[in-house]
């Protein structure tokens, strides 16, 4: 009986706290402790959300942002894994290149945006390039690390089996680097979303980032909050999906 109670008490308390926070939000807005220009009520936010979604307007904006994020992320993952495999397998390349990569990594990706604007202009391609540039680092460095830490005896196995370098990368290297690469890809997904939003704000591309900026400028707080909620949902769903995929792909490792 007590065990059953404790099994349910954890989620129950968790849900209760979330509901409590929602109620607090509702009370604060109802009493107007905070000006409604800054903080719309939960009901107003919900209405703006339902309204925008049913008219299809918010759906289009969400799709725009998700598409940008996904393309940039896929591009970054491909480049990161391919380059990472190349640099990771060669001790020489690692010694020559890795210090430079480690120095570039902490550079805020958004700082590259002005350069990209100057080179490419205010276009969707610019946003995509910046997302790919910013999101490539976690994947690239994690993949290099994954390749660099391959058990030395596996190299010997590869030599004994006379695997070509490409076959070695595909059959031994990639499966070994996969856990690292996937962890990097999860991080770069977050980076992709952030850069997609900033890119939309700066380059006025159709998407949620631009929409919430306009909502703020036009003092439409309910639309602003609806956009922020949707961006939170995008972050939550993409991260959850990727974590589930990661668990599935790495199932062989847990055995």
């Amino acid at each position, binding site marked *: 009986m007590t065990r059953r109670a404790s099994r349910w008490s954890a989620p129950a308390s*968790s849900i209760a706290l979330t509901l409590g926070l929602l109620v607090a939000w509702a009370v604060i807005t109802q009493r107007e402790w905070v000006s409604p220009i800054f903080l719309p009520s939960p009901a107003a936010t919900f209405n703006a959300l339902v309204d925008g979604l049913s008219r299809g307007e918010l759906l289009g904006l969400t799709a725009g942002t998700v598409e940008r994020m996904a393309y940039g992320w896929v591009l970054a993952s491909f480049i990161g894994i391919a380059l990472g495999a190349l640099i990771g397998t060669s001790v020489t390349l690692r010694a020559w290149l890795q210090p430079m990569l480690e120095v570039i990594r*902490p550079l805020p990706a958004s700082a590259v945006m*002005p350069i990209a604007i100057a*080179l490419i202009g205010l276009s969707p391609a610019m946003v995509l390039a910046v997302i790919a540039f910013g999101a490539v680092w976690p994947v690239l460095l994690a993949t290099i690390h994954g390749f660099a830490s391959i058990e030395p005896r596996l190299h010997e196995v590869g030599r004994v089996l006379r695997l070509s370098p490409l076959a070695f990368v595909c059959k031994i290297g990639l499966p070994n680097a996969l856990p690292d690469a996937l962890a990097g890809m999860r991080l770069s997904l977050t980076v992709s979303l*952030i850069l997609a939003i900033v890119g939309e*704000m700066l380059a006025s591309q159709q998407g949620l980032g631009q929409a919430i900026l306009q909502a703020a400028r036009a003092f439409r707080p309910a639309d*602003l909050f609806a956009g*922020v909620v949707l961006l939170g949902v995008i972050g939550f769903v993409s991260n959850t999906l990727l974590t589930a995929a990661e668990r599935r792909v790495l199932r062989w490792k847990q055995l």
Partner: protein
Amino acid sequence: MKPDLRGLAVPAALMVLAEAGMRLNQVQSDALARPTEVAGALWQAVRDGSVWLSSGQTLWAALAGLALGGGLGLLLGLWLGLSRRAAQASTLSVELLRPVPSVALIPLSMLVFGFGSGMEIAVVAFTCFWPMLILTQAAVRQVEPRLLEVAQMLGFPPLARVTKIVLPAALPRIFMAFRLSVGIALVVGVTVEIAANPQGLGYALMNAQQSLRPDLMFALVLWIGLMGWGLSAGLLALQHRWFRHSLPGGTGGQS
């Protein structure tokens, strides 16, 4: 120990190539600048003090935001780490709020605080709150349970238990969380300035791009990169010095 110069060779070679190529082809561009021009622009910005002024603004906003958000995250993380029930109750709310991308709050912050340090501090604080919360909670969880039993046996009051046992034991990991958060704070600060806030290094960067000064633009990107790299290298050195023996692997924990 001989320093490995191979890592320096590649960037140096790239610079020489860029310089030579642009001189030979007599490139006159609004988007590109020769490395020597970039160095000249940086030297001038350092001498006339403009880069110090904007660095000061960026650093102040980033560190104030870190102190505010990171401090709150630290306190809450300590509590959630110590109390299983509090941790369970917070799970859902944390999981729902954490994925909201930090930059999505730029328009809201703009609406509430207007332009200036306030909005930037608010966005940085929101961003730094989460890693400090999660990592502090994890750090406290990993405190040897027997230490807590000892404290209980000695009859320490709760506050003394935290200050005398938990904090010292969790400090190495908390410092690691702090080091990560400093990097995040700087990145987010620059991003907020690039996207909206007219002050600091990010704004100077956007300004250089818009006034067609590619030399200054690259100089500022270089400066931001050096600053971020210097900060993270300095903190990493401190971590090695203070906590070398108390982190897993005895190396001070590279991750």
